[in-house]
C-alpha cells in the first residue's frame, strides 16, 4: 500500500461541483489529499509556488471564467516542471473532436462530469488507480490516455 497519499488538485468554477468532488474523494478508499481552486488564474498562482508539492493528478474544468481550462492545459504542458503530473480534463460533455483535441494538447484523461454521485466516485477511482499504476509500474506516462 502506498504510504504516501495521492495528491489531487481540482480547478472548477462551480462550488457545487467542487463540493461533489471533495465529498466523493472522502468516500473513496484510496488515500488522497484534495485541493481545489476556482479558476484558471488561481490555478496558475497555486502552481507557481516554489515549495509546492506537485499534485499527482490535476482535474481541470474547461469552462472557467478569467482563464479557461484549455489555456491552462497548454501552459502547464509547456512547463517541464509538471511533466509527471497527470492532467484529467473534468468537463461537461463535448464532441468527440473536442475531446480528441484536449488529448492532443496534452491531457491524459477526459472525464465527462456524470450526473450521478456514485458514478462520479467510480470514475474518480478509476482515474486515480490508473494513474497510480502508471506511477508505480514503469509505464510510460506519455501514452497514458483515458477517456471516460
Amino acid at each position, binding site marked *: 500500500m502506498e504510504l504516501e497519499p495521492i495528491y489531487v488538485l481540482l480547478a472548477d468554477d*462551480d462550488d457545487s461541483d467542487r463540493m*461533489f468532488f471533495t465529498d466523493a474523494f472522502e468516500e473513496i478508499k484510496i488515500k488522497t489529499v484534495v485541493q481545489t481552486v476556482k479558476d484558471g488564474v488561481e490555478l496558475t498562482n497555486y502552481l507557481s509556488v516554489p515549495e509546492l508539492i506537485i499534485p499527482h493528478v490535476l482535474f481541470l474544468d474547461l*469552462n472557467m471564467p478569467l482563464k479557461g481550462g484549455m489555456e491552462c492545459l497548454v501552459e502547464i504542458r509547456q512547463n517541464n516542471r509538471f511533466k509527471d503530473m497527470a492532467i484529467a480534463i473534468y468537463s461537461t*460533455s463535448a*464532441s468527440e473532436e473536442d475531446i480528441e483535441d484536449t488529448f492532443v494538447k496534452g491531457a491524459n484523461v477526459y472525464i465527462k462530469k456524470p*450526473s450521478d*454521485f456514485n458514478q462520479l466516485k467510480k470514475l474518480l477511482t478509476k482515474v486515480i488507480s490508473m494513474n497510480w499504476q502508471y506511477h508505480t509500474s514503469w509505464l510510460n506516462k506519455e501514452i497514458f490516455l483515458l477517456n471516460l
Partner: protein
Amino acid sequence: MKHQNLFSASFYLKVIFAASLLILVTISAITYRHTQSLTESIGWVMHAYKTNVQVEQLFSMLKDAETGQRGFIITNDTVLLEPYNNARQQVENAFIQLEKQMETKQQDDHLQNLHRLINARFAQMEVTLSVARDQPLRDDLLKSSMVAGKAIMDSIHLQVSKMAALETSYLQDRQAKYEYKASITPLFSLLLLLFALNVFIFSYWKISHDLNTLKHKNQLLILQSDSIAHAEERNNMALRERNHELEQKNKELASFNHVASHDLQEPLRIVQTYISRLTEKEIGLMSAKGKDYFVRIKLAVTRMRNLIDALLLFSRTNRTDSIFEIADLNLLLDNARHDLSHLLEQKKGSIIAAQLPTLNVIPFQIQQLFTNLIGNSIKYSKPEVPLLILINCEKPAPIDFPNTRYDHARNYYKIAVSDNGIGFEQMYAENIFTLFQRLHHDEEYEGTGIGLSICKKIAENHGGLITAEGKPGIGATFFIYLPA
C-alpha cells in the same frame, strides 16, 4: 420593321455587287469586241489593198513582158528579152500567192479567168515573138498578132478592174458594217457606264446610310447593356449583403443553440447529482409521498436531460467547421455497433450488414447517423421478438429528387437500414424527420423527437437525403442517399 430594312439591305448589297460585276464584264466584253472589230477592219483594208496591189503587180509584170517583147522586136537584142523571160515565172508565183488570198468564189472565178487570160496573152506573145524572129519579117502577121495581144490585154485590164472593183466593194461593205457597229458600241458603253455610275452612287449612299443606322443602333445597345450590367451589379450586391446577413444570423443561431444547450446542461447535471446524493443518503428519512415526488422529479429531470443532450447533438451537426475525410463506412458502422452493443444484446439483436463504400464524409457525423438509426430500431423493436437489422447498399446510380433543392440527377449510393420492429404508418414518413415531432407518447416510448432530425441534417450536410418507409407491425426501412 427596321430589322427588315437592314436585312434587305444586305440582300440589296449582294444584288448591287452582282450587277456591278456583270456590268464590268459586259463592258470588258464589248471593249474587247470593239478592239477586235477594229483589228479586223484594218485587216480587211490591208487585204483589199494587198490584193489590189498584187493584181496590179501582175498586170505590171505582164506589161513588163510586153515591153520586153516590144523592145526585142524593135532592136532584136535578146538582152531586152530578159524581163519577158522572168515575167512568166514571176506571174506564176504571183498567182499562187493571189490564190491563197481569194475569199469568195466570185473573186476566185475572176482570178481563174485572169489566169486564163494571162496565159492566153503569153501564148499570144510567143506567137508574136516567133513571127518577129521570122526572116523576112511579115508585117501583117506581126500586126495581127499584136492586135490580138492588145485585145487580150484589154480583157485582162477589164478583169483586173473588175477584181479591184469587187475587192473595193467588199471592203466598202465591211467598212459600212463596222461603222455601224462602231457607232452604237460607244453609245452603249456610255449608257452602261452611266447606269453603273448611278448604281455605284446609290449603293454608296445606301451603304453609308445603313452603316450609320448600325452605328446608332450599336450605341443604343451598348448603353442598354451597360445599364443592365449596372442593374445586375446592384442586384448582386444586394444579394451578397442578404447572404452575408443570413450567414451571420445562421452563425448566431447555431452558436445560440450550442451555448444554450451547453449552458443548460450544467445546472441540470448538478440538480441530477444532488438528486442522486439525496436518493442515497436522505431518502430513508422521507415520507412515502415525499419518495413518490422524488421519483417523479427524477423522471422529469431525466427527460429534460435527454432533450438537452439531443439538442446539443443537433446543434453539433450544424457546425460549419467539420472537415470532410475519406472514411470507410464499414468502420464507422462498427463503432456505432460497438457503442450500442450493450443495448443490442438486451434485445437479442443482430445486425447483418452488406459491404459499405469508402466515401468522403464527416466521419463523426456518419457514425452518429448509424448510431441514431440503430438506436431507433432498438427502441422501437417488438417486445418479444429478437431484433434483426439489415443494412444494404446499392451501387451508385443517377437519381433525381424532384421538389428538393437538388435540381438535377446525380449518382447516389443508396444505403437501406431496415428492421423488424413495430414500424409506422407510411403517411407519417416525412413527419418523423421533423424536429421535435414524435409519433408516440412518452408513456409508451421515451424520446426527444430529435434523433431522426439529426439524421436528416447529417444526410443534408453531405449533399444527400434520407427517407423512410414504414409498415405498421412489420418494420421500418430508412434509405440514406449519399453522393458518390
